[in-house]
């Protein structure tokens, strides 16, 4: 029988998955409202910028971005763990997703910046 003890408890991941779920539940309802009901199609740079010139909305989008990237990648990690991969594979995938998450987060923040300044970048 393999070693059943783990150095890190999955309880923290479970808890963070629930916390980000609550943030995303509220945030995505607002996100869908502001982008699909409050404005008319097509979505344009100008329409998005109008909202993102307010710092509060930038903070809202940043929190949504971070929560979505964390929740999505950890969710995918949990799906893979459901198939009982070996400890080594689990570690490699975990670190791989961590790096992918950091890259997504950085690129996402960069993508938001042009909207936050008048005239764009």
């Amino acid at each position: 029988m393999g070693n059943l003890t783990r150095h890190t408890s999955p309880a923290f991941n479970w808890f963070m998955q629930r916390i980000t779920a609550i943030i995303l539940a509220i945030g995505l309802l607002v996100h869908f409202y502001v982008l699909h009901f409050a404005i008319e199609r097509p979505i344009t740079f100008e329409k998005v910028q109008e909202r993102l010139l307010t710092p509060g909305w930038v903070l809202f989008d940043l929190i949504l971005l971070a929560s979505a990237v964390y929740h999505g990648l950890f969710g995918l990690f949990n799906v893979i763990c459901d198939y009982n991969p070996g400890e080594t594979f689990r570690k490699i995938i975990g670190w791989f997703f961590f790096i992918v998450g950091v890259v997504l987060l950085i690129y996402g923040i960069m993508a938001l910046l042009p909207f936050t300044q008048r005239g764009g970048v």
Partner: protein
Amino acid sequence: MDMKKPGMIREWYLNFNWGMLAFVFHRISGLALVFYIFLHIYSIGHSLGGGNEFDRMMQSYNTPLGHVIEYFLLLAVLWHLFNGLRITITDFLRFSHQQRRLIFWVFIICGILAIGSLFRFIPALKVLIGGI
């Protein structure tokens, strides 16, 4: 004794019930949504090429097919969101005894919001119905 578990997909129909249906929808929508995060950040990233580049990217999704795909995105988000709330409520508020009943509320809330958003997301349907 054969300890081999049935494959996850086989388990879906070997042990089928409302809870399993909720789980299957949650998993499929979850996988679709994590794929969408990549597409979404990639698309929004066109802002780095300037406002016109961003508008061109957004306009490319503004087609009847794009609207239908966006509507399926909404369906995935709605299910994952409200079923996720059911799971969170069950975990945090000790709702294990009532969680099964909550599945039907998830269906009802998602159904109402999905039907209510239909014409908003796929305006072509209005023309279709108006044409009859």
